[in-house]
């Protein structure tokens, strides 16, 4: 039996089938922007797995390649080394099990809120009329039933995020990838959205990979927090299980002693990386 076959067999028996998402030694190297053949390694040898129904956050300093990891998981970016697996299947091209909520506004500006939510269904061959009928309850679920015919520019930042959330969830992805989805919102709106997300998630547990630079957000929402080192060549350096009770209220849970313990513990490790990352941005 060849080595790779043995590894594959080992992975299967190890419960790779159970993992909704698995990254195996993922390294991403990009050509440097100076265009002189230099290269830049964003992430190095990242291995992680996310169980079905698990909420995992990845925290790390700015520029540590958090989005890169998500793009590999989504199949938008092919890694230079390593591979991504979704439910045991290698990801080749767009990951069909994944929904992606982007950091920046990603709604189609020429479609109304309703049309934006319906888009995913339409792309899957549902007739337009029916897709829009099915999009309506989703808009209601994110509290925007009266705003269906508004265009993205007519909505506030928080409303656009809600539309994006409904747009991502309507196609029922098994894995939801979220790249700092609420980072552009003010703190009140943000906590509202976090609670709403937790509500939606607890109603229908999907695997969530949540990227953030905000440790409090990470702890208050997840089952597990992964810590990424400062780039370049960012690696996973820490893993913490968050054993806080659910259902949670993200504002209240921040006051509990267990939360503060976890925060202290993880921050102890993250702080150094943030300082390293900060020193690097000053250098360049």
């Amino acid at each position, binding site marked *: 039996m060849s080595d790779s076959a043995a590894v594959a067999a080992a992975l299967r028996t190890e419960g790779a089938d159970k993992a909704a998402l698995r990254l195996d030694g993922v390294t991403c190297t990009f050509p440097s922007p100076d265009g002189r053949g230099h290269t830049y390694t964003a992430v190095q040898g990242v291995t992680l797995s996310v169980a079905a129904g698990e909420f995992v956050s990845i925290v790390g300093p700015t520029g540590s390649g958090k989005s890169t990891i998500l793009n590999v998981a989504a199949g938008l970016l092919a890694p230079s080394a390593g591979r991504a697996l979704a439910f045991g299947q290698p990801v080749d091209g767009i990951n069909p099990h994944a929904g*992606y909520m982007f950091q920046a506004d990603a*709604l189609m500006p020429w479609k109304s809120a309703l049309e934006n939510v319906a888009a995913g269904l*339409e*792309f899957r061959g549902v007739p337009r009329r029916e897709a829009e009928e099915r999009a309506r309850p989703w808009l209601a679920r994110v509290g925007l039933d009266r705003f269906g015919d508004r*265009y*993205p*520019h007519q909505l506030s930042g928080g409303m656009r995020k809600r539309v994006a959330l409904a747009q991502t969830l309507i196609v029922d992805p098994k894995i939801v990838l979220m790249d700092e989805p609420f980072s552009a919102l003010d703190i009140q709106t943000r906590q509202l959205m976090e609670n709403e997300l937790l509500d939606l998630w607890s109603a229908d547990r999907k695997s969530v990979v949540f990227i953030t630079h905000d440790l409090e957000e990470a702890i208050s929402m997840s089952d597990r927090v992964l810590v990424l080192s400062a780039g370049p060549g960012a690696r996973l350096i820490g893993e913490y299980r968050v054993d806080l009770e659910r259902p949670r209220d993200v504002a209240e849970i921040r006051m509990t002693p267990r939360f503060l313990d976890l925060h202290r513990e993880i921050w102890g490790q993250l702080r150094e990386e943030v300082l390293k990352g900060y020193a690097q941005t000053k250098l360049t």
Partner: protein
Amino acid sequence: MALARVKRLPSRPVILLLQVAVLVGFFLLWHVLTATKILSPFFFGTPLAVLERTWSDFASGVIWYHLGITLLETALAFAIGTIAGIAFGFWFARAPLVSIVFDPYIKAVNALPRVVLAPIFALWLGLGIWSKVALGVTLVFFIVFFNVYQGVKEVSPVVLANAKMLGASNRHLFRHVYLPSALSWVFSSLHTAVGFAMVGAVVGEYLGSAAGLGYRIHQAEGVFDTVGVFSGMLVLTIFVVVIDAVVTVIEKRLLHWRPQEAQTTNAQG
């Protein structure tokens, strides 16, 4: 405490009144100058004669035929130029090799003053409407082409990635992402494109034809009929204003998703 004072423009009716006053003032000045013979009515016509000629042209119905011809040429030039511009714009934007190879030639042809092509087109296509349409097309095509090219190139990568993650096939991407993005650029150049289509038609008629507004003006010039020339220009101006208003209405209908003031839709990148 004094509130900060914002300098406010007068209300709409007042502005409209001022605009009409400028027009009336211009005609009045023209009238006074020609009536007192400071300007010779032979060279400058008189506003009353011009208005009277225009009125009688419309009343007798002669002008409608010529207007119709010019309108037809403008519409054909606009339609053909736009469709070709969209098709080639897409092709070039999606095929980098093609765009790099053809880049210098596109630029060279675009830099050429298109008026010099008019006699060639007349030679190839005769003195009928098609030589004018061809001239209009060469003008419209490049405007639309460059805008579509830009529109396809400038599609937000995040919007594109999002559509892909939602399961869009290439055909979906074209219909739901590239085309609307490119069309918003096309429509922002619609006024220019329609204007150029008309320039093509009128210049073509002027240089050799048997009908159209350009032909009318040329005929009048040939017999030193200044009143006829000015009357032709007046009709042309009205024609342009009407077409421009129609374009504005169409634009508002098709681009209702766009913010009214700003050009960009991404308030918070």
